[in-house]
């Protein structure tokens, strides 16, 4: 029983991380049809900025996380304005540009700080464990879940209550028609990139807490699963991404626990995610939310 609880909490923590990456990815793709391969690199930017602030900058943990989120958000907005916006008429070049940034940014981080994992300073309050139903669960799992829930709540409020949220929901359905109502949809694009970058870099900063260290390829590794989450949840659907994130995180953890010798520790977990995706697409080709992927 205690093992099940621990696996569930770890799976939820991982799912929370996936959600922080996937929610922005899903909105960006849903609204703008931009497949942002640089989204994982934004997570790494947030992670390294937070790590730098916490070590060289001697900032406290939460300030360092806030710093990482701000830097990642700024990087995301810059990416949209400088590289993505001039290429809206050329979607193929746009994908190539994001792939390039997705490769170049981790390489830059590696060039400056090396390829080795850097230990992320763990604040005392968050490095302990909690006894939950007989299991000893690290506190940082709950930090991630709480952060993801907060982001989910804020995103839903933004989408439901604000004019820009309305523009985003309409734009996911029919972008051209939004412009035909006199709305400059490019502003919404930049805003959505900012929101996605903020969530991803927050995820990056908290990933340092979750994994105990940061390394340049962390973001790209998480991006693969974030893409799976986006496809499963349905593009443009924040709630769908949340449900799919939880599913992927849990399946991965439990499958890893049941790992067959010879397949490698992580092999079965990753494989099971792909199987989950395949089964879901067979049963519901449009993803969980029923919209066309």
């Amino acid at each position, binding site marked *: 029983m205690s093992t099940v609880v621990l696996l569930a909490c770890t799976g939820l923590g991982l799912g929370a991380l996936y959600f922080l990456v996937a929610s922005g990815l899903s909105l960006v793709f849903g609204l703008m049809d931009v497949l942002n391969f640089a989204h994982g690199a934004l997570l790494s930017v947030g992670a390294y900025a937070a790590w730098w602030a916490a070590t060289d900058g001697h900032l406290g943990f939460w300030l360092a996380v806030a710093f990482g989120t701000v830097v990642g958000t700024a990087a995301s907005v810059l990416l949209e304005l400088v590289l993505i916006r001039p290429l809206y008429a050329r979607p193929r070049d746009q994908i190539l540009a994001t792939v390039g940034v997705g490769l170049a940014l981790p390489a830059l981080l590696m060039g400056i700080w090396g390829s080795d994992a850097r230990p992320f300073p763990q604040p005392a309050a968050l490095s302990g464990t909690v006894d939950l139903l007989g299991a000893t669960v690290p506190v940082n799992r709950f930090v991630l879940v709480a952060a993801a829930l907060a982001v989910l709540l804020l995103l839903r409020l933004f989408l439901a209550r604000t004019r820009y949220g309305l*523009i985003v929901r*309409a734009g996911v359905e029919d972008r051209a028609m939004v*412009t*035909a*109502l006199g*709305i400059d949809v490019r502003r919404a694009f930049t805003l959505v990139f900012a929101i996605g970058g903020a969530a991803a870099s927050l995820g990056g900063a908290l990933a340092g807490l979750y994994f105990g260290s940061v390394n340049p390829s962390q973001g790209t590794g998480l991006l693969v699963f974030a893409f799976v989450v986006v496809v499963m949840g349905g593009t443009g659907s924040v709630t769908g991404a949340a449900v799919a994130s939880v599913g992927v995180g849990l399946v991965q953890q439990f499958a890893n626990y049941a790992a067959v010798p010879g397949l490698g520790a992580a092999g079965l977990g990753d494989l099971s995610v792909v199987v989950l995706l395949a089964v879901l697409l067979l049963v519901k080709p449009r993803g969980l939310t029923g919209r066309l992927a």
Partner: protein
Amino acid sequence: MSLLTVRDLRVVIDGLHILHGVELDVAATGVTALLGRNGAGKTTTVKAVMGLVPRTGAITFDGADITGLPTHRVVRRGIGYAPEDRGVFAHLSVAENLRLAERDPNPAYDLVFELFPELKQRHRQPAGTLSGGQQQMVAIARTLLNGNRLVIADEPTKGLAPKIVTEVADVLARAAASVPVLLVEQNLALVRRIAGRCAVLADGRTAHQGDAGALLADADAARRLLGVGTHHATPGGDSR
């Protein structure tokens, strides 16, 4: 004096020449009908005016060149657009569809709800669950919320039941009393009833411009330009 003039409008999409020099003058009052057989280029013409497809030529609105403007700035000049197939946002409620269209500080909800009381009753209903006629009401309502100087309606009666066609026609006729309308329409009875002038497209070119009533009264010209007989057409029905 024309409110909207289109000269030598050409549109190429994916290497296909869709329009080869359309000429169009939209009168500053009343309804101007844009006619032509299926595939003649009517919808592409209005999309080009709205900046929704790449285009060359000269499009002048109220004396200003709008050929190179992006769609949202064309609209902000005061052009309301109800597209073919209505373009309502199915997952948004009726109220949200209307709110999205608000541009003026004081949107004309009184007028809209007077014309379409049903939309007020169905305020919270997702637009995707409305009937085709109700969706068309949402599309037209969005153009009437703002003080537009021109309304473009692309086949607003397509696929609607005869009773609803009459309703939509009444609304368009009423709207046309205060704002000029460019109406793309296949229903010639409707055109005869509310349109003053008309332009006829054929194969991506303007084949005829003139008085709508005169064209439809001339059975030979109507058959040659539109490929239909017009004397059986009755209001409320399709051109039978």
